[in-house]
């Protein structure tokens, strides 16, 4: 119950590391339930490291981070899988099993995350596939799908456990503009149904067409459009 009223992500006075050196220092921000937030910055400015820290893939040493009700300062490694079931992670290199159909890919994730009831699994599978617009591709193999469709499967996979927030790192990075805007539309739609989204992107057209709160990694600091005004454009 308490979770509903609390921010999905809360970072306070934290340093973000990339291997041994600090890429962002003393950052603080919150993401509320149902919020859509862009994360921008030059390559190497710390966007990916920040996302990795949020899904407990990178350690941090200072400050406090809470994600989806889990206190990352104290989280034990055996609890990390349960944190990740509450969040959805999407990025370009995120592999599908190449030797399994879309359905098998998704049911595998369900079994991996503790689903047991076959009827419920079937229901949820149809639901997420419809949601990403791939109802007809259930029995196809990943290599039979286009890049955009594959990314939709990855999004469907991230949605299976009804995450509180989606962390997306350049989800449209290697897709053509038309397909990209389709994928982006899907994120907006997911967001409208109450899931928060934190999306790292270089695509300024999205921000222009669909303005929302922006976090910018800039020279070791994190600027927040909700608190300061700053120049969006720049060479990334």
């Amino acid at each position: 119950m308490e979770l509903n009223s609390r921010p999905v992500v809360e970072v306070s006075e934290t340093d973000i590391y990339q291997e041994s050196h600090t890429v962002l220092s003393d950052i603080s921000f919150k993401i509320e339930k149902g919020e859509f937030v862009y994360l921008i910055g030059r390559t190497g400015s710390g966007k990916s490291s920040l996302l990795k820290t949020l899904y407990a893939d990178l350690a941090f040493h200072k400050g406090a981070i809470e994600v989806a009700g889990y206190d990352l300062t104290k989280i034990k490694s055996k609890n990390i899988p349960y944190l990740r079931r509450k969040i959805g992670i999407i990025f370009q290199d995120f592999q599908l099993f190449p030797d399994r159909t879309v359905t098998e890919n998704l049911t595998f994730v369900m079994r991996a995350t503790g689903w047991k009831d076959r009827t419920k699994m079937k229901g949820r599978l149809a639901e997420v596939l419809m949601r990403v617009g791939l109802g007809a591709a259930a029995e196809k193999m990943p290599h039979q799908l286009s890049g955009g469709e594959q990314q939709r499967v990855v999004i469907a996979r991230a949605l299976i456990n009804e995450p509180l927030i989606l962390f997306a790192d350049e989800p449209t990075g290697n897709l053509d503009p038309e397909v990209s805007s389709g994928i982006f539309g899907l994120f907006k739609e997911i967001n409208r149904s109450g899931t928060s989204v934190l999306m790292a992107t270089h695509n300024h057209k999205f921000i222009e067409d669909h303005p929302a709160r922006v976090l910018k990694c800039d020279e070791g600091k994190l600027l927040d459009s909700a608190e300061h005004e700053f120049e969006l454009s720049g060479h990334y």
Partner: protein
Amino acid sequence: MAKDKKYRKKKLGSYPFASVVFSVTLALFVMGLFGLLILTTNNLTRLIQENVEIQVFLHKGLSQNEVVKITKILSSKDYVLKSGGQAQIQHITKEEAAETFMEETGEDFVNFLGDNPLRDVIKIKVSPEYQASQNLAEIKKEIGFISGVFEVTYIENLVQSINKNVRKISYVLVGFTVILLIVVVVLINNTIKLALFSQRFLIRSMQLVGATSSFIRKPFLSRASWFGLLSGMLACALIWGVLQLAEREIEGLIDLVRMDELLVLTAAMLLVGLLVGFISTFAAIKKYMKMSLDELY
């Protein structure tokens, strides 16, 4: 279709099947061969040691009772090899000895000399634990004090050289086996680590969707254990094959290998295959699970 699906699902945690099984089988086979060598050497040594004898020559003109008494005294000694509860002692009369001698040489020396110069002799087989040179010397002295005993002899050099060589060979074989075991473990470990390299991104993906470590490990471990066991079985089959072949070439070889020991060797090979497969996979997966994405590339 259902069968097809099942086949595909099985592929999770899979890696180049043939090459891994081949390498592991070969490594285990060489190890088994060494094990077999040690077993054969051990049994050969035992066979030789069981035939180490002390000959006790008796005074001439002893009565039957006196000979029986000496035999009884000797039978009760700890250093006499017991087989099936029976002390391995043999009394050869001077007549029997002369007969054997005549058979071997073809000369009737008793007739020629007009007397049998030989003596009654008692042959004692010595337990392996009393075969050290010092022990044998003490035994010789002790028997010498028994009344009615004329002389005690044994082939000193043979016993000494057997003992020395057995020790040397044992050290060398044990040393080789230890080295070989390490090589086998490292080889199997590397093969599995390399094979799992191709699966590292899938392991990563599973972690990111929230699969627990045990769920990720399970298919890999069950497959690796099965491969290890299969390799063990193949290696055992090869060893049995080699044994059959060798038996055809070297007569009596199979007598040097005891069935119970061979079964222990077989079980050990299966166990090494299984354990090394399991542990190497466990370690490799753990390594990949701890790696960050950058390290995986």
